[in-house]
């Protein structure tokens, strides 16, 4: 089963977004451990919300707000996609992340096609053509 592991840096100021070389080195080592254990599928780090925007709906009306956002504590800093055998294993990996301060990590199980009812599976099959490959050269 796959889990998405989110990290919330919990920073008070977005100005502090860029991590120290020390923190980056520690995180690289952690990522290497995930790789060596054969559990890591992909990962990405995200820019602060000043580079992003929110598209929200209140009472059906769409509103687009550019970042940065006030409530920085609830901002995602990056994610890992891992393949493990249980939620406990996902928790164990998350708890090994070299995090400190007010960081929060969250693990969420990824839906597989077989988790959906046949009706939902059928609804999900509207486009039979996969997107273009980006890696193949």
């Amino acid at each position, binding site marked *: 089963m796959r889990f998405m592991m989110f990290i919330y840096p919990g920073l008070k100021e977005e100005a502090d977004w860029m991590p120290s070389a020390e923190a980056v080195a520690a995180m690289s080592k952690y990522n290497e451990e995930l790789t060596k254990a*054969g559990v890591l599928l992909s990962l990405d780090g995200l820019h602060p919300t000043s580079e992003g925007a929110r598209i929200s709906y209140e009472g059906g009306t769409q509103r687009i707000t550019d970042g940065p956002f006030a409530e920085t504590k609830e901002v995602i800093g990056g994610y890992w996609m891992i393949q493990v055998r249980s939620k406990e294993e996902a928790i*164990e990996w998350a*708890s090994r992340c070299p995090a400190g301060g007010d960081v929060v990590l969250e693990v969420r199980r990824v839906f*597989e096609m077989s988790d959906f009812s046949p009706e939902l599976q059928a609804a999900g099959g509207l486009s039979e053509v*996969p997107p273009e490959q980006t*890696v193949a050269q």
Partner: protein
Amino acid sequence: MSQPRSPSGAERPVTHRTIEAVWRIESARLIGGLTRIVRDVGLAEDLAQDALVVALERWPGSGVPDNPGAWLMATAKYLAIDSLRRSRRLEHKHEQIAREIGIQLAMDASDLEAALDDQIGDDVLSLMFMCCHPVLSTDARIALTLRLLGGLTTSEIARGFLVPEPTVAQRIVRAKRTLSAAGVPFEVPQGDELKSRLSSVLEVVYLVFNEGYTATAGEDWMRPALCEEALRLGRILTSLAPSEPEVHGLLALMELQASRAAARVDSTGDPVLLPQQDRGRWDQLQLRRGLAALELAEQLAASGSGGDGGGGGGAAGPYALQAAIAACHARARTAAETDWHRIATLYGALAQLLGSPVVELNRAVALGMAFGPAAGLELVDAVASEPSLASYHLLPSVRGDLLERLGRSAEARLEFERAASLTQNSREREVLLRRAAAAAAEPSPDCGDSAL
């Protein structure tokens, strides 16, 4: 190094499942390290299990230690000293090992940590080579690998392979005894031996994958779990032996095949063949991982890395070739866009490498798609007399398909009927009989369906 966890450890209750998860992450490194020290894989596993028992007793009260792997290793080492010292026939060898462990424990582990990183990798790789040693039967290799490297329980392995639990338990016990009796060294083979021993490791991993992959989904959760287990082992291998092209080739093959898992069965559980699959259901992340691994395998093969002996450097190995074929399907956004010319060429290279009539038969299908049914039929007829294909249902099935496309319906019907009589699979038999009936009904040359 990992940061300290919450000091009390009381924030989250430590359950049996928590400890199982730690075990799964640490067991291969633990057993590998212990095997190197005590020089017996059976004893090493016992010690690791005993350390686990101590963890199960202590952790629920104390919390999971900051570095659970190091904790388990230290505990196992203390247990090792105990057991070696207590052993009645206090051989000189045992005493010496016990002393060495004592010295290691006395040293500050953190100073050694960086230096030990490579050692741990070597230990896990040595353990893989040991579990897949040719002195063991294939079944024993699989069971031992899943047990010692995958951290699976005997009952999980039994469920995965649909065999009784005592059978698996016995296989593992016997395998460990055989390794010990044969004096199989705990090491990464070098030179000429490396190639053949590595191919044994890759074979075991691929067999585990296929065991899970060929089963139709939905039977038992353990079957798809075997695929994930094989993928995990394959990924670990790419970290441990990064310069071996075939290691990446096998991973590419498994990732590409696994990327199609969700499209391989319909909502009623019936298998869906490749040309009919809903390609929107292919897992794009896994597919890209597969293509990336293939690219690496091809680069390494081209640069001649790891090619010390055998087929010679520069040429792709059998796993990379099969992955390259899978990649042709993966890159085609619709079945009609499939590059059959390239697939035919790749099957040609694979046939040269393996000399297998089954590969030739696949090449015939590809030729039939690339150059028309006559080209395919020519090759089918060339291999038709192979004794190993005598009762292989796909031979008449492929032949029937090509004949039908050539408008030779009467002959096609006979081939489909013959294929139906040979297959063990009832669903497949139905399909073949239907095709036989259709061939009998319409004499017109038309249908362009592949038998793949």
